[in-house]
């Protein structure tokens, strides 16, 4: 269910949700499950960033690059489909571990895919940094100074493209991120171009992390037994989704239904920063600046609260803002 908050970062939401519930119950996922969570999360990051890069290329009118990127993105989708069975909602995480294993027979095929992707992403970085169209449309567009970024509480690649080294994976390690070496990619450009480069290099970093995780995966079980009763308790869970810090807050009251469940997805956190970026820009630059924060209008904000009295789920979503933005963009998907 938590997966249906967002279709693009569905794994980040389930990881965050399962972590919050595991915290409530006082259990911990086994090591192998943690590694599998990392692999899926990083594959998802590659898929999400390449999707975004395609959309960004489309927004600046470079549809050729959009088509190339979406073609190569199918490699990641194939890998995810190969591991989990589905292209979008993977249903890998469950409370107390993961549902499916990544056996060693799968490793060579995944690695082949990663090699291909690495080659392609390097090529795209070269293209992007040498192509005049992209340079003209993105350099010095949508400036967000580091001071403003911190003040307006921006998250994720938007913040890192302003030169602030901040990553939940490094600062507040969850799953197996404390055991896997990786760099936090930052860029000092503060503009849309910096956001593109940060995301591209994060994809390369993700590829290395998946390789490391595949090689160092410990053996063991996939899930632990989950106790049936929940004590009154509360938990805050944070995950670095492809778009930035995702936070779930859960509180239980001893019954089978939660007292309060709150989701704050990264795009909402970036909206105040976006308003700052749009100041003094040309109207023609609005789409690319908007796309620069990687907005995911579906996951922009939704809260779910399960009312103890009726036991029904209530979900609110963040339509008004999305509508405004959609009106601004015309009806681009």
């Amino acid at each position, binding site marked *: 269910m938590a*997966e249906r908050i967002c279709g693009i970062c569905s794994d980040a939401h389930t990881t965050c949700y399962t972590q919050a519930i595991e915290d409530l119950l006082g259990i911990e996922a086994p090591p192998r499950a943690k590694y599998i969570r990392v692999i899926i999360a990083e594959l998802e990051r590659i898929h999400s960033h390449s999707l975004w890069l395609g959309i960004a290329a489309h927004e600046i009118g470079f549809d050729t690059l959009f088509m190339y990127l979406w073609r190569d993105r199918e490699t990641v989708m194939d890998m995810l489909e190969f591991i989990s069975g589905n292209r979008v909602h993977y249903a890998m995480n469950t409370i107390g571990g993961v549902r499916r294993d990544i056996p060693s027979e799968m490793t060579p095929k995944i690695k082949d895919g990663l090699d291909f992707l690495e080659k392609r992403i390097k090529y795209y970085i070269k293209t992007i940094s040498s192509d005049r169209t992209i340079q003209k449309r993105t350099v010095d567009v949508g400036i967000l100074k580091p001071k403003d970024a911190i003040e307006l509480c921006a998250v994720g690649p938007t913040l890192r493209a302003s030169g602030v080294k901040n990553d939940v994976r490094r600062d507040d390690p969850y799953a197996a991120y404390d055991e896997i070496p990786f760099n936090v990619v930052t860029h000092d450009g503060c503009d849309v171009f910096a956001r593109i480069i940060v995301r591209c290099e994060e994809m390369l970093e993700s590829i290395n992390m998946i390789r490391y995780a595949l090689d160092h995966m410990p053996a063991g079980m996939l899930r632990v037994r989950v106790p049936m009763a929940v004590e009154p308790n509360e938990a805050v869970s944070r995950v670095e989704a492809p778009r930035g810090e995702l936070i779930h807050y859960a509180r239980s009251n001893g019954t089978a239904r939660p007292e309060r469940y709150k989701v704050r997805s990264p795009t909402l956190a970036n909206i105040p920063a976006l308003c700052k970026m749009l100041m003094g820009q040309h109207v023609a630059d609005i789409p690319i600046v908007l796309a620069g924060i990687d907005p995911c209008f579906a996951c922009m904000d939704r809260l779910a609260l399960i009312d103890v009295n009726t036991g029904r789920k209530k979900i609110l979503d963040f339509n008004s803002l999305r509508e405004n933005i959609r009106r601004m963009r015309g009806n681009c998907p």
Partner: protein
Amino acid sequence: MSIILEAIRQIFKSPITLKYPFEKTDVPKDFRGRPVWNMQKCVGCGLCSRVCPSGAIEMIGKGLKAEIKHYVDRCIFCGQCSESCPRNAITMTDEFEHAGYDREKMIYEYRRES
């Protein structure tokens, strides 16, 4: 500039497009398509209809006489029913082409053969 060279290179490659409607594509091993009930195994405990997050499974009657109605238009293909079933009576098939003109015709009914 390099993207132009890339474009020229693509001309000599075979197309990547799948010929889908004319040639069927394979589905991966763990694909979650339409769930199918094996009513010989089903004991009518009703667990599947209770765990279903979208209310796509309706159970009429109880125990061995139970009938199951599965609304494909509501199903989100999450596989929770097949995972929860204590008798492994539910399997997720490879079927994914469910498109239809009428929601009334998208209901699958299962009942135990006597």
